[in-house]
């Protein structure tokens, strides 16, 4: 979710060759295009240090030619594994293929790298699944279950990485929900919360499960990327896990619904004349009953809408707080510099409307 932003920081701030693994599907993009996607100027220096490697994390040896793979194992000293499917609705086997097998294949690459010095893994704070209450960074295993296959597969990936902890130093960065750039409002990856706002914009948001005071933890992509960069490049701590979350100053569920309607009205005054009602905040069984009715009625539009919400919305029934002791110990000014969601939420909403949720540039 912040792979682009982290790649951009690495290219700009590190005097080293950067190998960027691009999915082998489709034609090979040229470097200029990649630099543009990474929001980097087309500088000769960047072009020379950025090496594009095509591959597929789901395949053994990343599906690469022997020579290419060998080239990596000979040269690579640092790896950040950010490749993942962030879809919440994949069947578990598909999610595992990308997020667990993919992690295993990247970890095997690291193990084969003769000069490997550190391995960073981007995970999610929601590997805690259906747990409630305080979630400590050092905690991993639990039996509470998961709301969706994304959470489950990332959890399993973290479990798998424990097997490699004696092979190379690993640090894990568990991100909260990445919402958008705090300065520009830009969203590089539209995910469930953006879709939820879209449903409100279309007047199709009927209900959300949860409680009004549930804390909806959203973080900015730019601050998350710079935090990961700082932790990984400047302050690497082997065998430590970090929660990169918004924390106490997050919106509550009720506040975020209110703020969404307020910001949608600011961004599109004509929309506000429709007076769409705000979605009701309901218990899980009401949401499920409604979901089942819509499914039974086979209404394609409402079904699509609810499916988009269904795989993440149930997380709103499991209130939790994320401990950040490790993070604050390394980056004591994290909280102070954290962009307030209240200040940039509107920018992200404007970006969503302007780009029609990523459909137009």
């Amino acid at each position: 979710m912040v792979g682009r932003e982290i790649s951009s920081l690495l290219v700009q701030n590190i005097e080293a060759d950067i190998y960027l693994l691009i999915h082998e599907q489709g034609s090979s993009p040229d470097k200029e295009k990649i630099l543009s996607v990474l929001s980097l100027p087309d500088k000769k220096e960047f072009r020379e240090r950025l090496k594009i490697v095509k591959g597929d994390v789901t395949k053994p040896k990343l599906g690469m030619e022997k020579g290419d793979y060998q080239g990596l194992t000979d040269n690579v000293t640092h790896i950040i594994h950010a490749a993942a499917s962030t879809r919440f609705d994949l069947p578990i086997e598909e999610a595992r293929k990308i997020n667990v097998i993919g992690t295993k294949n990247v970890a095997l690459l690291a193990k084969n790298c003769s000069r490997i010095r550190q391995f960073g893994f981007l995970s999610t704070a929601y590997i805690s699944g259906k747990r409630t209450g305080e979630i400590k960074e050092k905690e991993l295993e639990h039996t509470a279950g998961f709301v969706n296959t994304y959470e489950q597969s990332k959890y399993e990936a973290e479990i798998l990485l424990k097997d490699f902890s004696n092979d190379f130093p690993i640090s894990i960065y568990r991100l909260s929900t990445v919402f958008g750039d705090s300065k520009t409002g830009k969203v590089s990856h539209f995910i469930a919360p953006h879709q939820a706002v879209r449903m409100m914009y279309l007047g199709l948001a009927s209900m959300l499960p949860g409680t009004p005071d549930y804390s909806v933890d959203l973080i900015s992509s730019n601050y998350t990327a710079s935090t990961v960069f700082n932790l990984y490049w400047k302050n690497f701590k082997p065998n430590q896990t970090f929660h990169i979350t918004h924390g106490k100053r997050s919106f509550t569920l009720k506040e975020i619904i209110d703020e969404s309607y307020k910001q949608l009205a600011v961004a599109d005054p004509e929309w506000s004349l429709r007076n769409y009602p705000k979605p009701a905040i309901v218990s899980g069984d009401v949401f499920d009953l409604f979901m089942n009715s819509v499914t039974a009625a086979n209404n394609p539009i409402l079904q699509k809408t609810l499916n988009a919400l269904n795989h993440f919305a149930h997380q709103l029934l499991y209130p939790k707080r994320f401990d950040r002791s490790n993070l604050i110990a390394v980056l004591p000014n994290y909280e102070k510099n954290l962009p307030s969601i209240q200040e940039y939420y509107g920018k992200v909403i404007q970006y969503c409307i302007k780009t029609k949720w990523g459909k137009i540039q």
Partner: protein
Amino acid sequence: MSIGIARLAYRLPTHKRSIDQLEKEGRINSPASLLSDFGFKNCYIQEKTAKSPDLLLESAKEVASGIERDSASRIFLYSGINSYFEKDNNKENALELFQYPVAKLRHALELPKANSLAISQQGCSGLLSAIDIAYHLLKSSHEENESILCATVDVLTTGTKREIMYNVMSDAAASVLITKNSDKNRIVYFHQQILPYYWDTPLHENELLASYFPMAQRAIESALWGAGLKISDIKWFVPHNVSLRSWEILAKLLHIPMERIWTNNIARVGHTVSSDHIINLVDMEQEDALKKGDYLLLFTFGFGASWSCLILQH
């Protein structure tokens, strides 16, 4: 002064079809099994024959029988279906355009002083709104013994499918007499939430489906607040007879047990545009479900779009 619904009556057509029969005849959009899961069983259809009973007249006659003829100051005739007042407009003789059903009703009921007026276009909310108008007229009137007759009739045109938004639709007529000194069904409070943007029903079908529950919750809570009542004060929720599933969802949303919602007529009759509440109230009375002093909350949604609540005290 206790303005309330003193008399009430309804009529259903004699011709009844099961939802399986409707499915075989291609008169529903959804499978019969789905509509059965949603609580429906039957549908009443008014046949267009000379022998078909006049549902409207029969229900109105029942509530008007025996009243002082001069006491009825007004008749409001409501239909939620546009075509009821607009049928056969293609007349050669322009005078034929002025054959008003409400004038015919006044004549048949022999209520010479009743200012009669037809009203329409509020979907299933129409009769509750008519009752609210009647309430305010009576409240502001100085006549001691005054009553207003509100009648409603909804008969779908021949060939129209018998399902609207997953609800089985029956034809029906119902009438109520609102009096100043009613010994039952005192009108406590009426509240209506409207969303004018949704006026184009086919265009906004999905938005309407999505907004139904949050608006329903808001309308009911606002009505209770306006009436100074708590939800626990309501003995019976008298529904519009839309899908049982929708009432199960709304019940959970409002934290009320299904036992407090009179759902018996969803299977037996289905939804009738604007007669549902009267059908239910008459049956509740006949089955001795109502006790003196019970608070009743009548809720409905009407295309156009409005969410309406009428609170009565039996």
